[in-house]
């Protein structure tokens, strides 16, 4: 990897994230850790979406569903007394993967706008399953009274420790995605985005690779769901609302589709923007809506596209 100014910016960004707990202590603002933990978890979700959206060109409008699936897996297990994180988290990933396999197999048969709509419809379906989970609080959600426990290896309730766990997961995820998109598999996904018909014509059955990417992305987002539920000690259908899937797409595009660090930066900028605007005016969406339009029109490659230094990839 060449060292470009862009890479330096991202390096500084990751370094800044690594410094958050220290900074919070210096500033006596413990809330910074809480705030950024949530941001990092949502960044994990956005980075996972980027694999299929940015690299694979699959506009999934139902990605937030995995936040719910992962979260409910942790929540329901905790409700029944299973708080072992080594059981909870892998299961959260596994169930997300299973769901992605089934739904992906149906959705990926469709193209373009049909794909957008059918992923949205499945997300609605699961959302209503969540609302109907009366035994687990239904619309009220489920409070998780005991946090996941990783055999005492990590102090999950200690906020900086948990922050570093989330941060490490984000770093590992970015590394894995980096390897994936540059591997043979990743090239197939990108080729399919670029020209799916051509990819098939040279003998690549793209469907199964796209499905695999869909499952990988879903699994990572399911992990993010488990993290989010742990961080919040709570899970409810609200995280699966379709506007949350919209937020994830916005994060990815804002940061830069198909760029490695872009979606993470995008998530954090998006959430900070939300905080700033909403602290300025109650009517912040009046400003934010047109900003989205302008983003689409004038900065299609997002923040990543604004940074200097070489091509993506």
């Amino acid at each position: 990897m060449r060292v470009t100014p862009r890479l330096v910016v991202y390096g500084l960004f990751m370094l800044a994230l690594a410094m958050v707990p220290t900074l919070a202590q210096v500033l006596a603002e413990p809330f910074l850790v809480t705030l950024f933990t949530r941001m990092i978890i949502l960044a994990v979700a956005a980075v996972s979406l980027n694999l299929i959206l940015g690299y694979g060109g699959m506009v999934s409008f139902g990605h937030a569903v995995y936040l719910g699936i992962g979260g409910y897996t942790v929540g329901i297990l905790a409700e029944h007394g299973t708080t072992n994180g080594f059981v909870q988290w892998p299961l959260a990933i596994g169930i997300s993967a299973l769901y992605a396999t089934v739904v992906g197999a149906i959705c990926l048969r469709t193209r373009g706008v049909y794909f957008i709509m059918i992923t949205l419809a499945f997300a609605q379906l699961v959302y209503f399953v969540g609302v109907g989970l009366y035994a687990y609080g239904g619309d009220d959600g489920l409070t998780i009274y005991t946090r996941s426990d990783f055999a005492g290896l990590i102090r999950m309730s200690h906020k900086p420790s948990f922050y570093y766990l989330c941060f490490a997961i984000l770093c590992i995820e970015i590394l894995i995605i980096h390897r994936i998109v540059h591997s043979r598999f990743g090239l197939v996904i990108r080729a399919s985005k670029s020209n799916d018909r051509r990819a098939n014509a040279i003998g690549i059955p793209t469907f199964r690779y796209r499905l695999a990417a869909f499952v990988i992305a879903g699994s990572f987002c399911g992990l993010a769901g488990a993290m989010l539920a742990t961080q919040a000690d709570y899970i409810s259908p609200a995280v699966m609302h379709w506007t949350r899937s919209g937020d994830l797409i916005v994060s990815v595009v804002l940061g830069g589709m198909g760029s490695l660090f872009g979606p993470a930066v995008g998530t954090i900028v998006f959430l900070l923007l939300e905080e700033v605007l909403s602290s300025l005016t109650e009517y912040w969406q009046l400003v934010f809506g047109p900003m989205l339009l302008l983003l689409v029109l004038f900065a299609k490659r997002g923040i990543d596209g604004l940074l200097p230094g070489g091509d993506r990839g």
Partner: protein
Amino acid sequence: MAEPILATRGLIKRFGGLVATDQIDLDVAAGSVHALIGPNGAGKTTLIGQLSGEIRPDSGSIRLEGRDITAAPVHKRCRLGLARSFQITSIFPDFTARENVAMAVQSRLGHSFRFWRRAKSDPARTGPADALLAEVGLEDRGNMPAAALSHGEHRQLEIAMALATAPRLLLLDEPMAGMGVEESVRMVETLQRLKGRISILLVEHDMDAVFALADRITVLVYGRAIATGTPAEIRANQEVRAAYLGADEEEG
């Protein structure tokens, strides 16, 4: 005659009331260049679509080297040795020229469920890709984004991609469409070099190229094959002259 590399029997495809492919029995002899000609709307592209697997015929069968591939999906046919180029340029515009070919090489190398190793610098992919680029005369274009190549270079690139899959039969859908004279000559040269090594089914409007390259020619009119034969036979065929060549020759 030995078994044809490609054989269709009774192929029929209708679109609504229109019969686009009407009882086509086509045999492409192994090692030959077989041209498919016919006026616009004769159903050439529909036929190519069925042969490559993008369009499902209503009835009839398609065999590749004796093997029934009528229901096989596009990628499967490619694996079995049937490669194609498209009438309208179809490449990976976001990739470099080398990567375009390397993708096809990768396809030949087996499944792509390899998630970790960096693929772009993998000599198993780039080695054959560079060789093929050289074969079609694009050796100095490897690092350019494919989208930036000229039209003629795109067609050459497509040939390289098709060759990368190690085909037994090439389906070339108007490889010279929209080319200048010089580019056409280069393409004919490229195809001449391939002749004998790989069987080719060629759809082309450029009659000079067709008669220069083809061993046999099938003439398609309104979905029906009205004649098949050597270039000389076709030239002499009255029906063909009436339906098709006649007009051409009057003009020329």
